[in-house]
């Protein structure tokens, strides 16, 4: 019996030190992290995630929201929704958390070269897409048109507001933001994100679309894209499921034959769309 494939570090988080905490929204914050041992960090691809460990409380899968090509801290944008993420919200600079990863599949930013890139995000779903946006900006000339369509609940729930403005102003990029509801102090769009998709600004026949947000939002977005003529095999989406190990051992994240942790979280739509239609899968 060979044990050559066994990985002694499989379960072992590496301590990282918080270098900066930034409040993004009432319940959402960004942590910048550096390895506590001062050694190098592993590279990651846009769309991948880490397991973040709050001492004694547990581990949660959180996608990386930083720039994959930048030399700098590991960046995670987190919504506080449970005990582990609540504890992470209370972290201060110099506090440590454990990090395992990166894990999972990634946005097909290389395959999309030469194509228009349509990035559709809903709510905190903008965070897993930000590395892809950074990548597109850094390699802007490799892509045709680049569109970011973002839907949020209210103007107060718009993530990365300053950056969205900058992207819109500084780069050759269509950035459209819409909110579900607003009052008159909001001068932007009101309505659902599918309306932005319907508005065009890209060549449907030469478009790769990346989507991240609630499953329902992605379902309607894919229909709106398809109605415009974007082929399903050029649409990608990121899924969320219960994860305890991130390496296909704990069984929790199964989605049909797929382990969301290692076959996903990024899937090509046509690979999973029949499963998305099944209740309670």
């Amino acid at each position, binding site marked *: 019996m060979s044990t050559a494939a066994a990985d002694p570090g499989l379960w072992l988080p590496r301590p990282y030190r918080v270098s900066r905490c930034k409040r993004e929204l009432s319940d959402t914050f960004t942590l910048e992290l550096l390895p506590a041992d001062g050694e190098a960090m592993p590279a990651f691809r846009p769309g991948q995630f880490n397991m973040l460990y709050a001492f004694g409380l547990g581990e949660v899968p959180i996608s990386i929201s930083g720039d994959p090509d930048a030399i700098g801290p590991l960046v995670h944008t987190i919504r506080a929704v449970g005990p582990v993420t609540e504890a992470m919200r209370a972290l201060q600079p110099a506090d440590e958390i454990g990090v395992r990863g990166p894990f999972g599949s990634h946005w097909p930013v290389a395959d999309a070269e030469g194509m228009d890139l349509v990035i559709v995000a809903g709510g905190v779903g903008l965070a897993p897409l930000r590395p892809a946006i950074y990548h597109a900006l850094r390699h802007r000339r490799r892509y045709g048109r680049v569109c970011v369509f973002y839907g949020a609940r209210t103007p107060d729930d718009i993530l990365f507001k300053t950056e969205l403005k900058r992207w819109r102003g500084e780069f050759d990029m269509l950035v459209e933001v819409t909110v579900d509801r607003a009052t008159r102090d909001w001068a932007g769009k*009101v309505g659902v994100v599918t309306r932005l998709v319907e508005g065009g600004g890209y060549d449907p026949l030469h478009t790769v679309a990346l989507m991240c947000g609630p499953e329902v939002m992605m379902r309607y977005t894919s229909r709106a894209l398809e109605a415009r003529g974007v082929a399903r095999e050029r649409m990608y989406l990121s899924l969320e499921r219960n994860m305890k190990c991130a390496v296909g051992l704990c069984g929790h994240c199964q989605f049909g034959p797929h382990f969301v942790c290692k076959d996903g979280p990024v899937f090509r739509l046509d690979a999973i769309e029949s499963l998305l239609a099944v209740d309670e899968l």
Partner: protein
Amino acid sequence: MGDIVRIHQMLGEHPFLGELPESVLETLAGCASNCMFAADSIIFRDGQPAQHFYLLRYGTVSLEIRSPGREALLIDTLYDGDVLGWSWLLPPYRWNMDAHAMTVVRALAFDAACLRSKAEADPALGYELYRRFVPVMGRRLMAARMQLADLYARPVKACR
């Protein structure tokens, strides 16, 4: 006369009326007029008779719900190329929301009573109008349902 020609041309350019037969455009032009609303003015109010509908040529319009003691709630925003108003098609022909010009708005206004009587007399015209309005209504209903689902709300653990 120059006005009619100009309106006819604007109708032909508006995406909502694309690919309409010339004769239908002619009929529509007879019920249309050019109009403008100042920024921050009200185009119509909830409860008023729906005497017009509008094709927006320029500007931003918000559809709003007012309620006492609350700020107006914006439900939808419309832009150049959008159509504003469908209550004129369905009895009792009254608006169900406020339409607020957020910017200067230039639009083509259509006389509802005029169009209703022409459509009554000419089913082909009526069919063309419904064929264009129904998808708009469908899209807005779908959007309203998605907004109702409040997809981005902070998840609440289901009580069991």
